[in-house]
């Protein structure tokens, strides 16, 4: 073990003169950084602020006595995401144990049940969803319908105290989910439209895609936000809904481009074979071309989801309080002025963990798709 790691070190870090120089510069730097951070994190940082503001970070300014609504919604989201994961990546008991560490940790740090209880509920429902689709393949068939129902329930549960109160990490996740789910079909239609034989449709779709791809997201979101009440005053859509519409309008164009690259990767021979069987163009596109195209672009599409999640903070422009903004709000309290690093570190780590989980799930999805073709 030690012998091999020495060998590995010598080969990889000190193999060539340039490697030696780089290693001599970088290794001490990294060690110093790691020491400083650990020292700060365990000796001088005061993490109580994160624990005390956890509720605001997670669900925004939801009134405390209504918090159960947001926690219920979070648990439903957990179940949906878990169930989705279970379709491509089989649940193992040790995954459950790792996840359950979160509420245990909260219990230890916090000492009370205020945060640990909801956390337990969310984690438990995630595990439940994950295990269900892993072990009972039949449930995968009803997942889209179940997820849709779940979403309706979320809205129904969260709406009474006021849609304007939605916030925190929950808002970021909701925004990401809604945008990802809606932009996929719209993007697919745009991609096909861009290849259509009807030139009017083709031109409209091309323009839409090109315009959206050449302007900043934040501007699109802001424009939609100010335009919707002007165009449709009687709708009275909430800021959250308008934000989601703006995100969907913007990201559909990107999805369309990814899907189009996938469509181009499907060999002509596939279409010709299907045509020679007498299949209609609609059937060919739906059952032969699209599934093969999507398979090719799973990775960029998931990258797009990550992109949406990381862009969610931009909803501050229309007055919404997402995860990042919630952190800023806490820091705006003069009483906590000296805890900037603690809060920002928590945000950074959480974004990093969620981002890596999405990337990891994407890799599993790709593996899953690859075995299907073989």
């Amino acid at each position, binding site marked *: 073990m030690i012998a091999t790691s020495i060998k590995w070190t010598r080969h990889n870090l000190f193999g060539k003169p340039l490697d030696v120089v780089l290693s001599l510069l970088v290794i001490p730097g990294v060690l110093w950084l790691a020491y400083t951070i650990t020292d700060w994190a365990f000796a001088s940082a005061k993490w109580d602020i994160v624990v005390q503001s956890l509720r605001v970070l997670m669900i925004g300014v939801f009134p405390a006595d209504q918090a159960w609504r947001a926690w219920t919604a979070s648990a439903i989201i957990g179940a949906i995401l878990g169930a989705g994961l279970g379709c491509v990546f089989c649940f193992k008991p040790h995954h459950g144990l790792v996840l359950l560490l979160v509420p245990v940790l909260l219990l230890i740090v916090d000492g009370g049940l205020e945060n640990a209880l909801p956390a337990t509920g969310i984690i438990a429902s995630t595990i439940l969803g994950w295990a269900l689709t892993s072990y009972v393949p039949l449930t995968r068939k009803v997942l889209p319908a179940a997820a849709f129902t779940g979403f309706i329930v979320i809205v129904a549960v969260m709406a009474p105290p006021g849609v304007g109160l939605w916030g925190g990490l929950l808002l970021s996740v909701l925004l990401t989910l809604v945008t990802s789910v809606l932009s996929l079909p719209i993007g697919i239609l745009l991609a096909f439209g861009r290849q259509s034989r009807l030139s009017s449709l083709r031109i409209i779709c091309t323009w839409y895609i090109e315009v959206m791809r050449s302007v900043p997201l934040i501007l699109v979101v802001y424009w939609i936000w100010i335009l919707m009440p002007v165009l449709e005053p009687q709708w009275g859509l909430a800021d959250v809904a308008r934000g989601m519409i703006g995100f969907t309008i913007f990201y559909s164009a990107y999805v369309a481009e990814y899907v189009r690259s996938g469509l181009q990767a499907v060999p002509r*021979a*596939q279409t*010709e*074979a*299907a*045509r*020679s*069987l*007498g*299949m*209609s163009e609609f*059937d060919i596109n739906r*059952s*032969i071309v699209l*599934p*093969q195209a999507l*398979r090719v672009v799973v990775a960029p599409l998931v990258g797009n989801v990550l992109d949406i999640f990381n862009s969610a903070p931009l909803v501050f422009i229309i007055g919404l309080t997402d995860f990042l903004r919630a952190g800023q709000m806490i820091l705006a309290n003069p009483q906590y002025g000296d805890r900037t690093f603690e809060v920002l570190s928590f945000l950074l780590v959480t974004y990093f963990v969620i981002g890596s989980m999405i990337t990891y799930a994407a890799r599993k999805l790709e593996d899953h798709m690859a075995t*299907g*073709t*073989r």
Partner: protein
Amino acid sequence: MNAIVEMKSMNKFYGTHHVLKDIDLAVTRGEVMVILGASGSGKSTLIRCVNGLEMYQHGRLVVDGFEMPVEADRRLGGERELAQIRKGVGMVFQQFGLFPHKTVLDNITIAPMRVRKKSREEAEATAMKLLDRVGLRAHANKYPGQLSGGQQQRVAIARSLAMEPHLMLFDEPTSALDPEMVGEVLDVMRELASSGMTMMVVTHEMGFAREVADRVVYIDQGSILEIGKPDEFFDNPKNDRARSFLARVLKH
């Protein structure tokens, strides 16, 4: 009328490139017609016109009682005849063209279910019979990528047959295969021919052409130069170009 395919001075262009020149050809029901010619002579284009994968510009093409619209009409939406024709005409390609994301069984059942609106049970029962016929019953639930080239091509034949075609088109069905697999595909085609299927076959397998064909057509640079019984064509070609073509291919 006994002809299933009838071409009357059919012409096809790729831009300004004149690929098929005044083709006159009739295929009778039950006939096996083999189409020979050098690379680039227009063999593929000819049979791809029959099921409308390629469009022709002038002349007339009648397939199975339906008039195939010329390019100008198809651009205006003459797709109804096209759909009718394609239902009755099967095609087997050089590169198999199986759907890689579907199992062998699903490859075979998708068109009968979608186009002929058969129930899944009925389509699957037919598919299993056809897989029996091409000797691949045991592979029904595999994906195409798990099969050898010869097996894939036999599945492709079964897939076409599932639509109960009146006419089968073959475009070099064995050219992409390893030599040891050519035989198994030709055996299936032989059996199909003896069952009375009308077939138009582009191939470089001269032995097969001679044995199975009722008539041989020789194409050169988009024109039919010779057409006749295989024995006459192979033993005593009248056309000079056909003679030198045969000398070239039979040498190997």
